[in-house]
């Protein structure tokens, strides 16, 4: 696994942290809703210690939200998402900061993850099973025989060293950068990097994930996590996922929309604001909000290029399913028969990721001159 930054350096690290129940998509995008609830249940099993599991509420703030209720409940039933209506009084008892004028509330099994540790624990498990993970290392180019990739050129930013590594099959899982990587291999991936803004508040105002009971729109979710509540998001197409300029009006929109769910939002100082791009799969003539959140695996044999597969789209919630799909395709291409075990096997502690690297590094460091390495001691304080 080659990653140009630290683990979770890309979109995953900076997302909204919502372990989707699928409720958000159960009316507009049922394929993706079903993927979400299936994975939600699997993740509860394999990473129970890494999730805040307090459920979520879909609340009706306006009459039009209320009119959506029946479709929402039907959508949940169609996608086997457990959903039940709770009284407004109970919703307010559970959420003292919730807008007291809400008209209805439905409880669904949303949860909250922490993306960095989410990724670390998958990678720690992979390390334990023999994977090699190289962070701070960028893929700069492909090595091809005819048009078929047989390896990649990489550069380690920590040391400046470059090298070439070979592979029977190369998987492109570069999120919103997947198009860029595919282009290096001479194929195109129909991807539209679509950014979203989130605003984190200086304190936590909700226990459960709060959603507007309606079709997905801007600023309609407040995800609580640790000591903060995060309002999100917006959706617009961007050219360069590395440098997204946050439009100031998007920040204001988060506050003005968030306020409809939790009126105190405007009174609380802002802790942080961030934007990051989704790797959405393009469909001609569709608005960014309407693009499906489902995922897609492209075997580039269809483009006349062998040994190269792209996996993109999806959600962090469905990351494991994406890995399963791409691994199945790789196994099939390599004529290797193996059952997927990631549905069942509980993940290794995320801390093992760094501990393991520590052991390896200690070994490598013993060979390096210690005088090479500055250790900024305490006396340095200015």
């Amino acid at each position: 696994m080659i990653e140009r930054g630290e683990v979770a350096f890309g979109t995953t690290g900076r997302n909204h942290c919502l372990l989707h129940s699928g409720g958000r998509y159960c009316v507009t995008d049922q394929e993706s809703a079903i993927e979400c609830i299936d994975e939600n249940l699997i993740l509860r099993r394999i990473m129970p210690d890494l999730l805040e599991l307090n459920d979520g509420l879909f609340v009706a703030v306006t009459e039009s939200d209320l009119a959506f209720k029946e479709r929402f409940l039907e959508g949940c039933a169609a996608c086997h998402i457990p959903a039940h209506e709770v009284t407004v009084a109970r919703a307010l008892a559970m959420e003292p900061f919730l807008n007291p004028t809400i008209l209805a509330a439905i409880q669904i099994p949303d949860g909250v993850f922490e993306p960095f540790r989410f990724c670390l624990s998958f990678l720690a498990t992979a390390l334990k099973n023999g994977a090699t993970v190289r962070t701070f290392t960028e893929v700069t180019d492909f090595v091809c025989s005819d048009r078929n990739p047989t390896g990649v050129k990489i550069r380690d930013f920590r040391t400046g060293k470059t090298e070439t590594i070979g592979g029977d099959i190369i998987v492109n899982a570069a999120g919103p950068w997947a198009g860029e990587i595919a282009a290096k291999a001479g194929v195109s991936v129909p991807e539209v990097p679509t950014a979203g803004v989130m605003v984190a508040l200086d304190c936590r105002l909700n226990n459960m994930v709060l959603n507007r009971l309606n079709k997905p729109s801007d600023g309609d979710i407040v995800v609580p996590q640790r000591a903060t509540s995060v309002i999100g998001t917006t959706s617009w197409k961007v050219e360069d996922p590395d440098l997204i300029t946050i439009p100031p009006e998007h920040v204001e929109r988060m506050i003005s929309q968030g306020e409809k769910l939790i009126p105190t939002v405007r009174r609380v100082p802002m802790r942080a604001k961030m934007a990051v791009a989704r790797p959405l799969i393009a469909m001609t003539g569709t608005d960014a909000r309407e693009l499906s959140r489902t995922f897609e695996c492209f075997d580039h044999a269809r483009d006349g290029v062998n040994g190269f597969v792209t996996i993109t789209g999806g959600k962090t919630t469905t990351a494991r399913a994406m890995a399963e799909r791409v691994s199945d395709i790789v196994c099939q291409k390599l004529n290797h028969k193996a059952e997927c075990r990631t549905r069942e096997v509980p993940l290794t502690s995320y801390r093992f990721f760094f501990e393991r690297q520590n052991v390896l590094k200690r070994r490598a460091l013993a060979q390096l001159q210690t005088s090479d390495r500055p250790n900024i001691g305490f006396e340095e304080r200015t």
Partner: protein
Amino acid sequence: MLTVPVEIFRFKPGQAQRYDTFTVEIAETAHVIDVIDTVWAKHDPTLTFRRACHHSSCGSCAVRINGAEKLPCIVRLTDVWNGRNPIRIEPLRNFPVVSDLLVEVGDFFERMSAASMTITCEAEGFLPLTVDTFAVAGVLPKTVELPDNLSRFNRFEQCIECGICMSACPTMATDNKFIGPAGLAAIYQARHKTDDPTRVKHLLGLADGEHGVWRCHSAFECTEACPQAVDPASKIMALRRELALRRLRKMFGLRI
């Protein structure tokens, strides 16, 4: 837009350490992490640094800004820039530098593992998480009854394992095996999640060890620097009190 000079610590194995100065064009509302990101994206892609969440949740981005340990994702540019001098960005202290702002965190995570504390816990109060939530929100706390058949809400622990307290701790500089503020705070939390006497004994044993709570000079720098209000210093003091009390009771032949 502002034009901001920023001075960044640089190091690659085999090369001498130095500071590079960059001038970045950036929005006045930016946070310091946006400055670092811009340097990397526009000026020098070989700059190595860590970050993920951009909102003080992952703990990976910790560095020193003008000498003080901070999470650049929650520090506003205008709070640390005086309009003239470059903002200085350096790696954490008391961690070996791998490259540029990147430090080796393996030892630190080994310490955090010692207490084998899970990162989820039961919410302490019903709401809020932080003591001053109500104050910040300008709302008076009300005692909320938990609705029937609802178990307590669960939460991630406050500590984001950012290492800031380790960098700010004067004891770390004199004893590099010191468990450190975050590790001891984790032992405290883990100890308060269990009644199992064997586990309590194990945890208190860790705290009581050669590199445990008695090494702390009570400088309280950790509590001062911690961005998450974990208050490791008070937790170290509480562990000391429990250990001292147990010793006393043992001396007088009482049950502990």
